[in-house]
């Protein structure tokens, strides 16, 4: 970035801070999740002066800001934006950046930095932001010259959005924000080293079509890459025309309507029994934007033993990483499917589909009911009936996350948002807030555990201040439930440091203290009333605490490292699988 073209005639001179703001406007940014501090004070000053077009949301913790940007990006398909100060402001975003990296979420994080001449001097609030985030960003820039600033912003959004999406960090030293130059937003990006293969090979697509035509027991295995590439519609058409059943990963939920008879729901560790049966018996897996991770495959050698594999993915480094791929189509997932569509006719899958239906009937998802105790699964089922697949459901990490994945039915892409790769407790509420800013037309439901919710509860008052009617569900089992489950199953029921009853806040008061509505249900017959009351609130978040049974466990389950064939479908004596 050493070449500086002379400014076009008439370009105005302005500060780096103003250039930054005008660049965001030129980029079409709608909302910025930010928190001020010394290194970026000039940006905030100019913000008050020039009143940019985007909305700035003052978050109460920078981690919340980063997750909010992720939620916004996942709900809208646009790039999320974060603005924080140097040092602690930057380090507070690290978890969110790592989360976005693992789940390929496009966000750009602008961090303040000490003046260039002080970098490396242990100056006040200095940290090596670029160094700290290097291994968790798709790319990063330190802007050393105000004349490079607009170009850096342009590049950052371009890189975050294209190819396999991911987080980009732009570090902005204070002197660069104070320096002046002419502003002109570049029309093009110049990145000679940045290539990605957008178009899969024709021959491979034809080969895939032939493999599909030959298969007796084909199965779509769909991941977050299909959602990210906006390929849900074409995927759905192909599956229905060719009569191929579909399973999705956690991040693939919503890419195919789960009320369709071809859907077998989620696969993997806490997937349905019938989805995993389908995988273990399929003779062809068509993996679409998925990466064969360990939570999906379990014990690698016994996974999908009869299947040939077609893999469609934008990222060449994910091909044949763990599992041999017979036909790899590297390129944009949507483009590849659009070209596959005319080649994929109806398959001879009637016998296979009958088998899949039989499996569904044999072992559906189930939990105990009717004893008067409130269980998380029941709450989620009632919520599903209430939302009818039309809400955006954001979840945290733990048992409630898996139950939500199991007991909701996702019908549309971008209606299920969660932290899958990094598994970040505290992700949920701020991400739901980001989604609510991005999709004001949708009802947003935030579903957390009692453990994870408090990790970013501070953002409640931000959502309240902006009048966002988020439906906030807290599944309170008074435990770090998922850890408790492992302790019960694999660690002789030593519940070491997972009991939260002494440290949980009063969630209703917590909600009220943050200017939200607080509600509580403790028995099954209170559930519908609480839901109705919450849905009646339209000007602020409604927090619903559901006090549920702590002993409940998530089943089915493939224990970590076990074979998918050894799935536990119901509670067994713990010694059965050690």
């Amino acid at each position, binding site marked *: 970035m*050493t070449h500086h073209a002379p400014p076009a005639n008439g370009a105005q001179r302005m500060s780096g801070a103003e250039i930054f703001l005008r660049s965001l406007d030129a980029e079409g940014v709608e909302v910025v999740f930010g928190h001020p501090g010394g290194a970026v004070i000039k940006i905030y000053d100019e913000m008050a002066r020039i009143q940019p077009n985007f909305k700035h949301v003052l978050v109460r913790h920078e981690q919340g800001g980063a997750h909010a940007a992720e939620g916004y990006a996942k709900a809208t398909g646009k790039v999320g934006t974060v603005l924080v100060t140097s040092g602690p402001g930057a380090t507070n975003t690290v978890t969110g950046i790592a989360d976005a990296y693992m789940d390929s979420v496009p966000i750009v994080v602008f961090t303040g930095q000490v003046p260039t001449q002080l970098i490396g001097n242990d100056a006040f609030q200095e940290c090596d932001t*670029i*160094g700290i985030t*290097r*291994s968790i960003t*798709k*790319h*990063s820039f*330190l802007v050393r010259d105000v004349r490079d600033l607009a170009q850096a912003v342009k590049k950052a959004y371009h*890189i975050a959005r294209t190819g*396999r999406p991911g987080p980009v960090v732009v570090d902005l030293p204070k002197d660069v924000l104070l320096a002046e130059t002419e502003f002109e937003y570049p029309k093009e990006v110049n*990145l*000679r*080293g*940045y*290539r990605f293969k957008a178009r899969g090979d024709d021959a491979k697509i034809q080969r895939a079509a032939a493999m599909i035509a030959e298969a007796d027991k084909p199965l779509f295995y769909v991941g977050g890459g299909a959602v990210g590439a906006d390929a849900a519609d074409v995927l759905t058409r192909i599956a229905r025309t060719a009569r191929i059943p579909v399973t999705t990963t956690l991040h693939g939920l919503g890419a195919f309507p789960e009320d369709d008879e071809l859907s077998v729901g989620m696969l993997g560790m806490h997937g349905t029994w019938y989805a995993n049966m389908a995988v273990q018996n399929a003779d062809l897996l068509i993996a679409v934007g998925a990466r064969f991770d360990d939570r999906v*495959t379990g014990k*690698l*050698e*016994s*996974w999908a*033993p009869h299947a040939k594999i077609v893999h469609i993915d934008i*990222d*060449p*480094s994910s091909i*044949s*990483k*763990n*599992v*041999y791929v017979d036909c790899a189509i590297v390129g944009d997932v949507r483009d590849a499917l659009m070209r596959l569509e005319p080649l994929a006719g109806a398959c001879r899958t009637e016998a296979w589909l009958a088998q899949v239906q039989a499996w569904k009937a044999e072992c559906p998802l189930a939990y105990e009911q009717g004893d008067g105790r409130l269980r998380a699964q029941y709450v989620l089922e009632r919520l599903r009936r209430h939302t009818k697949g039309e809400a955006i459901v954001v979840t945290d990490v733990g048992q409630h996350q898996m139950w939500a994945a199991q007991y909701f039915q996702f019908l549309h892409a971008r209606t299920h948002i969660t932290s899958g790769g990094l598994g970040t407790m505290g992700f949920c509420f701020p991400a739901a807030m980001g989604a609510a800013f991005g999709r004001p037309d949708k009802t947003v439901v935030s579903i957390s555990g009692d453990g994870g919710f408090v990790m970013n509860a501070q953002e409640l008052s931000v959502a309240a201040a902006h009048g966002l009617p988020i439906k906030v569900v807290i599944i309170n089992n008074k435990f770090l439930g998922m850890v408790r489950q492992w302790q019960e199953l694999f660690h002789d029921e030593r519940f070491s440091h997972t009991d939260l009853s002494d440290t949980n806040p009063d969630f209703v008061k917590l909600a009220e203290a943050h200017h939200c509505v607080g509600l509580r249900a403790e028995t099954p017959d209170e559930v519908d009333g609480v839901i109705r009351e919450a849905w009646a609130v339209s000007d602020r978040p409604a927090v619903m605490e559901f006090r549920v049974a702590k002993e409940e466990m998530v089943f089915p389950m493939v224990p970590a490292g076990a074979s998918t064939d050894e799935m536990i479908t119901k509670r067994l004596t713990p010694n059965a699988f050690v």
Partner: protein
Amino acid sequence: MSEQNTLTPQQILRKKAQGEAIGPGEQTHRHRHIIAVLLENSIGALNRVVNLFAARGFNLESVTVGETDDPSISRMTIATTGESRIIAQVNRQLNRLIDVLEVEDLTSEEYVERELCLLKVPYASDNRVELLDTLKIFQGKVVDVTTNTMTFEITGPAKKINAFIGMMKRYGVEEIARSGRVAMKRALLFGD
């Protein structure tokens, strides 16, 4: 050597579970790899490349960097040892870096490699001639001399440098500085 014929972790685990032998060409072996990378001439770019290897636990035996004919582009030569399959994967990840323009694993190609070594040895009147004779055989040069030490410069493939260092050991080497390898694909191949 190419990863194409080697088995994925799943295939290897399956064969083992079946009690089948894994063929020599199927298993990925540890090999020395020489990888040439063209990248943006910036410290951040260099860091990202090295980080990728570090993240996968590779020891970099040598890394050299220098400008190319275009001062905005540098060329890195990386010598490392690892399983071909994982190296191929790292190379794909390198290709993914925005600052990387080109990646080439020279190991599977015909290539020339050179390294430069400076080596300081003590000498006395009774071994001076012997030392210089050895140096001559290795086509080295004397680049510095004092009343009791000489500094030699030799260049060549790493093997030759190793051999020369081996020869010098018995004189009691005082100091060695090696440049690390630089390498380039041969332009013309004869005979096929």
